[in-house]
């Protein structure tokens, strides 16, 4: 009997063991892919970059003079009193590194296959774009040892200036790759910025080089980045005819709206987005625009609902602990939050024109040379001169921000509710009719003819006017770029917070490294020494 039982048991066990190999093989994940394609990675990474620019820098936008915090809420001590901790305003650290990881993977995959040269070049350009944001925010960051998770869990920090200089070389490299990529696959629709038009990428790369050079030039005017500008000048730059704008196919469906619009406009159910309620117009910018007779004040900001149907634009004072409630202030206007399918701008033509204008004024690029944009010649300026480029920037900004649009009351549906979908959610509702580009351009020309400093070229100190108009042109959509320029130039002089409990007279020069670095990379971070947000400046700041 014993024998039989042992035999039965053995047979039984053996039966199970024999199928063990297949039975236990569970390595294919039915829930998520472990491979990707260059197209899938590129489309996602570009959209993520655009979202970061649109959504990670509202706090910095308060310091750049673009937003004030709503009186509906308990005052925000970080934004108004500057008591920053390692958990504040540094979400972009993780967003960018996560995003750049995808470009890095794409670059590595594409480098192995010559037919993917265009993908490789775009990945390099976008890495430069992202790393510039990181350096501008944190100065020294991991760069040369980044993205080495398999071999190095503790990447050392590189100097901000060294990173800047290498980014210039990387951009040159990307330009060469594109120029020599014959017969390479076009990224096509997966390139949600230029739709596979590699000339666009060349100009984007070249404009990025210009942005790096201008940023560094204030302190290091003879840095190689600056002196080398002429070498790629002939490629040309972004301008009013070519912005770097991403659009994967935004639509008025929950989760698929343009990111800026879903925050500052309305959600898919036509109710106000969170940023619209929280960030209100700033009194300083509203007053500045009004003093310049600038029609953009009516498109950049929405009318105050409690004054409606009178169109009144009113902002809060920066840091006012008794800030007015939302019905008494303006929200971001319909010229910025235009529609759920609007493009996400990575680099605006207006900004590129102002950068070119500065390069000409500073003598980094020769006035009127071939690679420069034409700019605005309607007022008699010669193409490619500082004035034409400056005025071109203003015109581009007027068109982009829909200066000259009109407001009208919304018809009632008879039950007290609006009869039609509305453009912005401020109560009571109104219908916004955007202008044609020609209308905006004409308004710009009139505007530029004013003999007002920082408006009309003849009446202005060139650099001051360029900086001021660039600040206006970057309103809302580019709070980070504006904050960078504010820290570089100090123009315009934005009044500081009036919060009596502020811990420093002026806003921080930078933010702190995030808590995650403190806990995961402490040794390397420690080598950066103590960071004081009021005195530890980014390397390019004077």
């Amino acid at each position, binding site marked *: 009997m014993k024998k039989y039982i042992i035999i039965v048991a053995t047979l*039984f066990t053996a039966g199970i063991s024999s199928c*063990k190999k297949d039975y236990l093989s569970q390595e294919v*994940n039915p829930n998520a892919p472990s491979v990707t394609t260059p197209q*899938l990675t590129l489309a996602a990474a570009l959209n993520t970059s655009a979202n970061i620019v649109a959504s990670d820098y509202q706090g910095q936008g308060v310091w750049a003079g673009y937003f004030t915090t709503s009186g509906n809420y308990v005052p925000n001590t970080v934004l108004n009193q500057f008591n920053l901790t390692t958990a504040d305003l540094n979400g972009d650290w993780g967003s960018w590194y996560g995003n750049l990881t995808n470009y890095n993977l794409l670059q590595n995959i594409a480098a192995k296959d010559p037919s993917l040269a265009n993908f490789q070049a775009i990945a390099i350009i976008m890495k430069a774009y992202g790393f510039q944001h990181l350096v501008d925010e944190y100065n020294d960051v991991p760069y040369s040892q*980044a993205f080495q998770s398999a071999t190095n869990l503790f990447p050392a920090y590189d100097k901000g200036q060294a990173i800047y200089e290498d980014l210039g070389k990387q951009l040159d490299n990307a330009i060469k790759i594109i120029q020599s990529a014959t017969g390479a696959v076009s990224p096509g629709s997966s390139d949600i910025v230029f739709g596979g038009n590699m000339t666009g990428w060349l100009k984007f790369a070249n404009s990025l080089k210009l942005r790096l050079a201008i940023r560094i030039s204030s302190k290091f005017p003879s840095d190689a980045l600056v002196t080398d500008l002429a070498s790629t000048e002939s490629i040309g730059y972004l301008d009013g005819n070519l912005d770097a704008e991403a659009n994967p196919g935004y639509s008025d469906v929950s*989760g698929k709206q343009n990111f800026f619009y879903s925050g500052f406009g309305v959600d898919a159910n*036509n109710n106000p987005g969170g940023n619209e309620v929280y960030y209100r117009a700033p009194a300083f910018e509203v007053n500045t625009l009004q003093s310049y007779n600038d029609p953009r004040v009516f498109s950049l900001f929405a009318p105050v609902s409690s004054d409606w149907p009178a169109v009144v634009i009113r902002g809060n004072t920066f840091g006012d602990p008794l800030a007015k409630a939302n019905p008494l202030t303006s929200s971001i206007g319909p010229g910025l939050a235009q529609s759920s399918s609007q493009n996400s701008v990575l680099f605006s033509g207006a900004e590129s024109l102002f950068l070119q204008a500065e390069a000409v004024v500073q003598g980094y690029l020769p006035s009127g040379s071939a690679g420069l944009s034409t700019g605005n010649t309607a007022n008699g300026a010669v193409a490619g001169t500082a004035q034409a480029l400056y005025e071109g920037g203003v015109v581009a900004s007027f068109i982009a921000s829909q200066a000259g649009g009109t407001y009208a009351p919304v018809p009632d549906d008879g039950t007290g509710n609006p009869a039609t979908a509305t453009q912005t959610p401020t109560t009571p509702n109104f219908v916004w009719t955007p202008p044609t580009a020609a209308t905006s351009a004409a308004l710009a020309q009139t505007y530029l003819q004013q003999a007002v400093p920082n408006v009309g070229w003849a009446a202005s100190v060139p650099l001051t006017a360029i900086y001021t108009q660039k600040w206006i042109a970057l309103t809302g959509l580019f709070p980070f770029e504006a904050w960078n320029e504010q820290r570089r130039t100090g123009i315009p002089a934005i009044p500081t917070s009036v919060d009596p409990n502020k811990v420093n007279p002026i806003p921080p020069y930078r933010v702190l490294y995030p808590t*995650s670095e*403190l*806990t995961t990379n402490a040794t390397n971070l420690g080598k950066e020494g103590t960071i004081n947000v009021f005195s530890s400046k980014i390397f390019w700041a004077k």
Partner: protein
Amino acid sequence: MKKLLLVSLCFLVLCVTQVFAQNRTVTGTVTAKDDGQPFPGATVKVKGTNSGTQSNTDGKFTIAVPPGGSIVITAVGYVSQTIVVGNQTNLKIALELSATALTEVQVTTALGIKHNSKELAYAASTVTPKDLTQTNVTNLANGLTGKVAGLGVFSLDNGIDPSISINLRGFRSLEGNNGALIVLDGVPVPSQTISAINPNDVADVTVLKGAGAAALYGSQASNGAILITTKRGSADGKPVVTYGNSFQFQKVAFYPKLQNGFGQYGGEPNYIDPLTGFTEQVPYENQLYGPPFDGSIVQEGAPLDSANGKVIHAVYSALPTNPIESFFNTGYTEQNDISYSQGKSAENSFFISAQNVTSTGVVPNDKNLKDAFSVRGHTTYGIFSMDYSVGYTKTNVSTYINNGKNTLGLGGGFTNADLYTTVLQWPANLNIKNYSDPSSDIGNPSNFYDAYAINPYWTVDNARDNYERDQILSQLKLKLDPTKWISASYQLSNNFGIYQDRETKQEVDFTAYGISDYFHAGNVPSGFTSGKSLGQVYDYYAFGDGTSNGYNRIEGEGIVDFHHNFIKDLRTELILGNDVYQQYRKNQTTGSSQLLIPNLYNINYIGGLISGSEASYTIRQIAYFADVQIGWKGWLNLEGSFRNEHDSRLSAAERSFSYPSAKLSFIPTDAIPALKNNNILSFMKLYGSISQVGNINVGPYNIYNTYSLAGGFPYGSLGGLTANTGAVSPTLKPELTKEIEFGAEISFFHDRLYFNYSHYSQHDKNQTVSVGTSIATGYSSQLINVGETLSYGNELTVKGDILTQQANKFGFSLEVDLSNNEGRLLSLIPGTNSLSLGNNEYAVVGLPFPYLEGTDFQRDPQGRVVVSATSGYPLQDATGIHGFGRTTPEYIASVKPTLSYKFVSLSALFEYRGGYVVYNALGSTMVFAGSSALTAEAGRQRFIYPNSVIETAPGVYTPNTSISVVNGQYGFWQGSNFSQTQSPFVTSGAFWKLRELALNFNLNKFVKESKFIKGASITFTGRNLFIWTPKSNIWTDPEFSNAGPNGTTPGVNDTNQLPGTRVYGADLKLTF
């Protein structure tokens, strides 16, 4: 093969014939010698066999005995008797109290093997059904609370369907599961399935505390195991019907201390009297920093609508009942249980039970309905036997949707406002009951008085989470006992269920007047300029174990047990086994936030796109195990076990791993003649064990990096993938726990005083940890095997029969359970010494884990708070994170006195937990709201921050005796760093609770004359009647925490945890 079958068959037939030919039936009555009363539940066995039965409620039994055979009658706490049957047909047995009452118990151990507790070489505690259900718990886990030293029951909350996890001997895995394995009738079941088991069906529960005791279950039982054995049928041929009914009330009892002196104000500049600078009451505020109550008449909310302008007024003074007591209902629970059992003997028996539990919660509209049916039995046919059980449980729960309960991603719109938060910030002068109809003119969303909150009654009426669990637990065990020394069994089990969850939110149509925002306050309706918040529906279906994310489990387990004593006095047993299981689950969601038709919650009628998802997971494991036991004369016992596992979650190279264990026990009172029959020292056992077990903390498919759909994608036909930020690796291995355990069991004075002590130490290596890495590496975390932890502790049980109950006299017994658990993280990857576990909790090298850390004020070297020399407000320490303490109890103690007199008994259970801290995030909410009593402690006057200093020069601190806070109202409590700093809300988590109180009347003797009713009892019960906490804890019951049931981060509560409740009621049990 054919021949083999034939031979087996012949053999069977022979055996069976033999059995049937020779047995004869005897009946008998068992009584207790001390009081002469019938003795139910005594085990009657034929000597030398496993065949046996139990005495019924009249003490009677029937058993088949071979000629010349003897029967053995045993009962816990009584001396065993062996009776040679001879020609007798009606036996009378009187049992005598045993000298070793507490130490000779049959204990169910791993794989369902019954052992005499004397032989065990590890800590195993048994909880009897009486102890388990003495206060009519509806969840078995609650019944275990405080009953076993070293066992901790953690409640996620005390809502209508609380999640509970059971932990043994503290935490050892940093990020993996620390929950005990639940084994039902020999089958491992998912931990949350414990709520599906009818507590009244349980015959006994054995708690195997250590990894060693449970080593045969392998990796699943690295955290110990709870073995639940359910009832089988009666054994005396007569049908027994029991019926039980209990009714219990639940009332909110322990809630945060509230201020009742001040009304609404929240920093509005236009509500400051320009002449006096005093604040005025703000009719629409959700913060309570207004002027003191003065009995005047004030306005509440905006005029009702623009047409009639009706204004709501309230007296500006506190109502007698606070909003918390007014809002929460008295919940009730009614349980009806019925069971039927019949059988000729324990070998051939049958049991059916049915249970219905209906509960309503303290939150209006909360309901929980549970129906459970089970059929079980045991059939023996010669050398074959079959044991089976099938249980079906259906649970329907309906509850409100809250921030933390909104599990399916119902989002946006109107709204995720927190129900309890709104109640917590309700002004003391406003009657919350007036708003109980959310469609009334003052209760509706457009007119609600509070500009920034949702009427909580709207939430309970219109934002609902309805879910349903259908759970089937089934098991079939076939056994063959061909000879005395060998048995073989095969057990098949399938536990599965379906979970269906639907969350809905009703459409709200706002009036134009509401949207127009009368006060220009930025009120809730003004966020809905479209005029509507559309209805929402989200559905979740899961096939698995019937809970939201549990696994279906199919398992086959074959065991061959050889037990033959080759040499006299040397007991030897060898068990060989094979175990194969598959776990599977699949879940899908569909939802929309844009329902077209109000009240039609159907995914077909929506605007926009359906949001949906699916996932499925399979886990497979094959294991082989062996267990050898050697005993010498009963006083020296050695057990060795070995298990080898192959698991599909790991890559082929890492898949196979083994667990050895060795255990030794020695009984000096039996071994040493001088100690035998000693009147003082009745029993002594010393034991020790060493074991190693693994714990697979790698999820299925979690060894290769994956990509996921990037946010927003697909846009039309354009897809986009992004790399996941958590990196994994195919080289992952199981965690390894090495456990050393030793202990002693000693009893004195004929067992009237009993001690059981054990010490354990667990050393865990290769922890599977998601280590945070700089995202600059490309990934924000890496799942790797790293980190060592140490966990050790002591458990002591003392039982004393202080007064032994003789007939009609007082009896008093006392049991005390004490345990402590110490642990710490020994090492992590070089370069980091802290691992974030989430929920503000960390594992830090050298400290116990999880360890609460958070923000604190600046402090001088003496720990005094540094305040600003100008404002008097405390300064926040911006530089770092401050450690507060461990979040799991270091000490757990329970005290169980039982007093009895005649037919009445009173028993109580007090439980203490201490040595840990709790972060009351709820406190921060209440300071924001201005409703906490803390905010009124200084009467809203300026005050000097207690024990504070001023930094007069760098590093020079002077005690602050003169700088009071510039504003003692809104300014300090809201405008300073106070409410945004965590340290003010961290308190000791210590508490004493009167867990259970039961007053039982055993009416058996009064119904004895009735032929119909055989037994009756009435019990008055109470659970969690009182709680005592340190004075510093003005917040809430520290027991509840917001981390998931198997999460490693308890110790943080917020407004998702409802206030503590007490439960009391009565039950009636009848036996027919």
